[in-house]
């Protein structure tokens, strides 16, 4: 068992070793009857320890260890400790394992950024790393990993790879080194240098020792995400390792056999590593892997080797990871169908955990074209799960799976089952089910009367959970499809007959009858007066918003059915409307009453004409479902990602940067940036300065240059210049872009006469930006920058997909002992990857028309912030990256441009038109691209330039 060997490398905290004083102290504390008594006992002990540490008599290792232990215990009880660090550091250099271990434990728990101490600690670690004593080396490595601070990373990041791949390192040391390196890499990837060792790390997958292999797989899985190509050789090694494990007899691996399953966790990790890559290209490797996957699937059918639940759990862990890999490859129809059948068996398993996981995995299988049909065969079981499962989370998985397996053939069945489920569903998931039903009903509607019925059913069953998006959408669809309008009017009319109907039903009914009530007015049972009195009977029970909607329906009725005019005018004239306390209702009543009495029938008919069709766009319901599922749900762990460096909370806290602290744009919580900042004095007009100050406020304080945000904006239309400047530091940028690639030179100038220390500029990709744009530092800068000197850093940039937010540059250094840090937006915006395209007027207009969907266009009308100079405008547009097309726009004042944004994954064609209006000092900017977010983003970027 993996656990068994850990005990072997950790010498036991033996009982005989007993620090009696400590035992007595702990039991004293335990026996304290009150908090006060505990504090009293602790204070007494603290005084005792303090006097021992200060005493003239030198303490022996044992006493030191004992007292440090007591301090640690007191700290862990929640009391502050402000001494004893030096004694703990002394213990590090002891040759006795237990003393050294307690020293390291204390250091790991109570790190202090006291630089003097850090130096001593680092020195002790260095000695232990060089000691060739494996237990000491492990302790040191554990300490580095536990502290994991930047300073320690800087001191040891280069040594650890060497220890990891050294031929003479013991297995336990290699294992610790791999995990330590993983920790450092996760904390500060830039500190871990890639190099010759990476190839040798991959070969650890072949190591004799399974513990080393396990640690190495974790490390490689993390490293290869950033540099997949460097670690590509791991595929074949992982496959052969996996194959050896999978085909080994159930006792071959001794310690690493868990209840007759060989190395389950290692197998899972190997399978996960393979999911970082596409299927192996080499036919032999691929064949061997497929064989492994088949073996795992076969084993699932064999009788279990043990009745213990641990055995089947471990086996199933491997099975589920195997299925994940099969789904990831999505290329072996045979395996996909087998996986589906296996999961189908689990759907009826008596273990809830397995049913849950089977439903979850099957959900991803449903989206593969190869297994979609196979998944559909389980529809009855899944529907049954939805009805009978006792655990809400399992039912939710079942609902998810039904949603995923739905297509035209089974939509009616699934929708009706989900509607039935909705009647008894838990409140927590009702809204999601409502959204899903609404989406499926719209997506797979063959006849729209079914769609209308479904949505009205939704409102009837779960009106409270039907959000605006859902009922807006049904109105849009009914408005856009004239074949369903009569049916819709008839159905809502019937639905409104119910004595108690949901307010959302009144809203939908009010709107539909106002627009299409005339289609059912021929029937005496739904004649205009009947329609009106039905609606008006609900009026008084409704909220203000609904009543406002109904008032609009009434004025539409006056237009549709002149015979109702007198009645409705009577209603509008009533004091409760004309003098309603709610301003909106009052206004509507007054205006509608006047409109109906003043306007002629023709005017009324024009004003109240039927609504034009709504533009087709992505269903707002779908967008809402995505939002609900999205990561924006709020995570308690979010903050960690934003600030990986502040990891010590118990011990010393790094003093916060005092003098220069440019808040990172993302952390601008107070919105200070939105308010006019102390701005540079307005630049003289036409001074050749492309970006004239946009803020008119008087300069509140002397400032060296533009704010970082302004500086960033300047770079939208140019590639070279000063990105940042304050009293200490100047950062200059030179950059060039071609196709989807770019290179950026960053120049850091030390404006002082004092050396900067620990100078460290790093590039940060907020969020998932890394999957959109890749920045590699090819030339690093030295950690010291002399006074007056300038250092250069080179970044290689590759645009993978379109992106909206720029990467960030974080610069940290020490100036005269004070840490400084600032975060800037790197001037890399999507328009940098523009390829200008020349085209004739005819082509331009043809393309312009092709991009006519509303979401492909973004438009902004805005006031000129700078003098409207045609030459400057031209320069900016060319700097922006597009080609300028002459003789295209009939109006010679206007500017028209075209270009293609090049990314690795796709190309986005862009057309733009800028119409200046000198008289009004306004511009109108229109962007059309083949990708919606790109249009909006480009439009925003460019609009800020004029």
């Amino acid at each position: 068992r993996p656990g068994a060997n850990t005990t072997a490398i950790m010498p036991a905290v033996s009982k005989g070793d007993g620090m009696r004083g400590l035992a007595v102290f702990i039991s004293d504390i335990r026996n304290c009857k009150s908090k006060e008594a505990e504090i009293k006992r602790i204070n007494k002990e603290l005084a005792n320890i303090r006097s021992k540490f200060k005493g003239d008599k030198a303490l022996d290792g044992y006493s030191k260890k004992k007292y440090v232990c007591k301090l640690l215990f007191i700290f862990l009880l929640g009391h502050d400790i402000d001494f004893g660090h030096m004694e703990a550091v002394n213990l590090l250099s002891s040759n006795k394992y237990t003393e050294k271990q307690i020293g390291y434990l204390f250091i790991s728990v109570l790190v202090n950024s006291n630089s003097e101490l850090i130096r001593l600690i680092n020195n002790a670690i260095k000695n232990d790393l060089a000691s060739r004593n494996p237990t000491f080396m492990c302790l040191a490595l554990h300490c580095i990993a536990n502290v994991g601070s930047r300073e320690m990373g800087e001191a040891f990041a280069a040594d650890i790879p060497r220890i990891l791949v050294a031929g003479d390192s013991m297995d336990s040391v290699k294992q610790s080194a791999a995990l330590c390196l993983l920790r450092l890499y996760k904390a500060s990837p830039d500190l871990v240098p890639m190099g010759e060792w990476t190839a040798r790390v991959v070969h650890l997958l072949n190591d004799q020792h399974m513990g080393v292999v396990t640690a190495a797989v974790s490390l490689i899985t993390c490293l290869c995400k950033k540099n997949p190509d460097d670690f590509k050789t791991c595929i074949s090694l992982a496959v052969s390792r996996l194959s050896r494990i999978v085909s080994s007899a159930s006792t071959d691996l001794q310690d690493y056999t868990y209840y007759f399953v060989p190395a389950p966790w290692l197998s899972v990790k190997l399978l996960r590593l393979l999911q970082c890559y596409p299927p192996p290209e080499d036919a032999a490797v691929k064949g061997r892997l497929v064989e492994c996957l088949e073996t795992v699937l076969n084993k699932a059918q064999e009788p279990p080797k043990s009745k213990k639940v641990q055995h089947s759990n471990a086996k199933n862990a491997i099975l589920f990871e195997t299925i994940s890999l099969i789904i990831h490859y999505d290329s072996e129809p045979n395996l996909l169908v087998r996986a589906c059948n296996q999961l189908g068996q689990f759907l009826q398993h008596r273990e809830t955990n397995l049913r849950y996981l089977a439903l979850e995995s099957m959900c991803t299988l449903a989206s593969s074209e190869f297994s979609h049909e196979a998944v559909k065969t389980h529809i009855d079981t899944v529907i049954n799960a939805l009805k009978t499962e006792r655990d809400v989370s399992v039912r939710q998985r079942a609902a998810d799976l039904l949603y995923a397996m739905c297509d035209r053939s089974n939509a009616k069945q699934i929708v009706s089952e989900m509607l039935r489920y909705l009647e008894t569903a838990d409140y927590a998931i009702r809204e999601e089910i409502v959204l899903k039903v609404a989406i499926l009903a719209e997506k797979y509607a063959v006849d729209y009367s079914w769609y209308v019925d479904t949505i009205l059913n939704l409102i009837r069953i779960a009106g409270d959970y039907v959000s605006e998006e859902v009922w807006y959408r049904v109105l849009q669809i009914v408005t856009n499809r004239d074949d369903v309008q009569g049916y819709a009017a008839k159905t809502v009319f019937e639905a409104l007959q119910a004595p108690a109907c949901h307010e959302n039903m009144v809203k939908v009914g009010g709107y539909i009858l106002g627009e299409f009530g005339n289609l059912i007015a021929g029937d005496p049972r739904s004649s205009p007066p009947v329609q009106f009195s039905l609606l008006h009977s609900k009026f008084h029970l409704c909220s203000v918003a609904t009543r406002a909607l109904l008032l609009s329906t009434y004025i539409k009725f006056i237009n549709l059915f002149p015979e109702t005019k007198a009645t409705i005018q009577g209603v509008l004239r009533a004091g409760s409307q004309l003098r309603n306390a709610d301003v909106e209702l009052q206004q509507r009543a007054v205006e509608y009453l006047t409109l109906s009495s003043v306007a002629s029938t023709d005017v009324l008919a024009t004003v109240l004409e039927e609504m034009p069709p709504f533009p087709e766009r992505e269903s707002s319901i779908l967008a809402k479902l995505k939002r609900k599922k999205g990561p924006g749900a709020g995570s308690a762990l979010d903050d960690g990602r934003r600030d990986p460096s502040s990891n010590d909370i118990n011990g010393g806290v790094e003093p916060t940067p005092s003098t220069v602290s440019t808040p990172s744009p993302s952390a601008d919580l107070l919105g200070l940036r939105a308010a006019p900042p102390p701005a540079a004095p307005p630049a003289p007009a036409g001074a050749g300065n492309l970006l004239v100050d946009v803020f008119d406020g008087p300069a509140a304080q002397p400032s060296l240059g533009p704010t970082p945000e302004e500086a960033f904006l300047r770079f939208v239309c140019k590639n070279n210049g000063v990105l940042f400047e304050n009293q200490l530091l100047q950062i200059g940028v030179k950059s060039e872009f071609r196709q989807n690639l770019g290179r950026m030179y960053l120049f850091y100038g030390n404006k002082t006469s004092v050396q900067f220390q620990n100078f460290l500029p790093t590039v940060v990709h907020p969020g998932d930006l890394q999957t959109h744009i890749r920045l590699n530092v090819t030339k690093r800068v030295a950690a010291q920058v002399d006074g007056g000197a300038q250092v250069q850093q080179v970044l290689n940039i590759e645009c993978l997909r379109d992106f909206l937010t720029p990467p960030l540059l974080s610069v940290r250094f020490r100036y005269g002992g004070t840490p400084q840090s600032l975060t800037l937006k790197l001037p890399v915006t999507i328009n940098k990857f523009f390829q200008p395209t020349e085209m004739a007027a005819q082509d331009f207009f043809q393309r312009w028309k092709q991009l006519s969907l509303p979401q492909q266009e973004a438009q902004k009308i805005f006031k000129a912030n700078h003098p409207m100079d045609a030459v400057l405008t031209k320069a900016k547009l060319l700097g922006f990256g597009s080609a300028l097309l002459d003789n295209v726009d009939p109006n010679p004042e206007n500017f028209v441009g075209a270009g293609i944004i090049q990314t690795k994954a796709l190309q986005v064609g862009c057309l733009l038109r800028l119409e200046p209006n000198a008289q009004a000092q306004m511009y109108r900017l229109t962007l059309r691209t083949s990708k919606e977010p790109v249009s909006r983003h480009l439009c925003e970027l460019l609009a800020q330039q004029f």
Partner: protein
Amino acid sequence: MIKFFLMVNKQGQTRLSKYYEHVDINKRTLLETEVIKSCLSRSSEQCSFVEYKDFKLIYRQYAALFIVVGVNDTENEMAIYEFIHNFVEVLDEYFSRVSELDVSFSNTVFHSTQQTQCSPSQEPVDELPRMCSPWSPE
């Protein structure tokens, strides 16, 4: 990927917590309270995986003690579920006749054990585990 590892008793007191991603100390208390609440309210018929915000909780109960592991959504639930048991077995073996004093000073062991089993730890143990009952896997 494992995000945190908690040991909480039935009264909702945290006995051991280990975070592999930075979480603010104030947020931890809140997180731990919510996490244990969502696990305690479940019956044995319910599955051992709970969706909580944007991650998943995987838990097992040993007598009065809950072990809860928070993972991201790419993690293999079953592997973690069984890993919890393996971890418990290792502790059981290490403290063959567990006494309160042993466990209250077992901090070091938790450190080393966890380190070798999952991935290097980021932060120190918050509180000493004070478990009175011997491990008795259900």
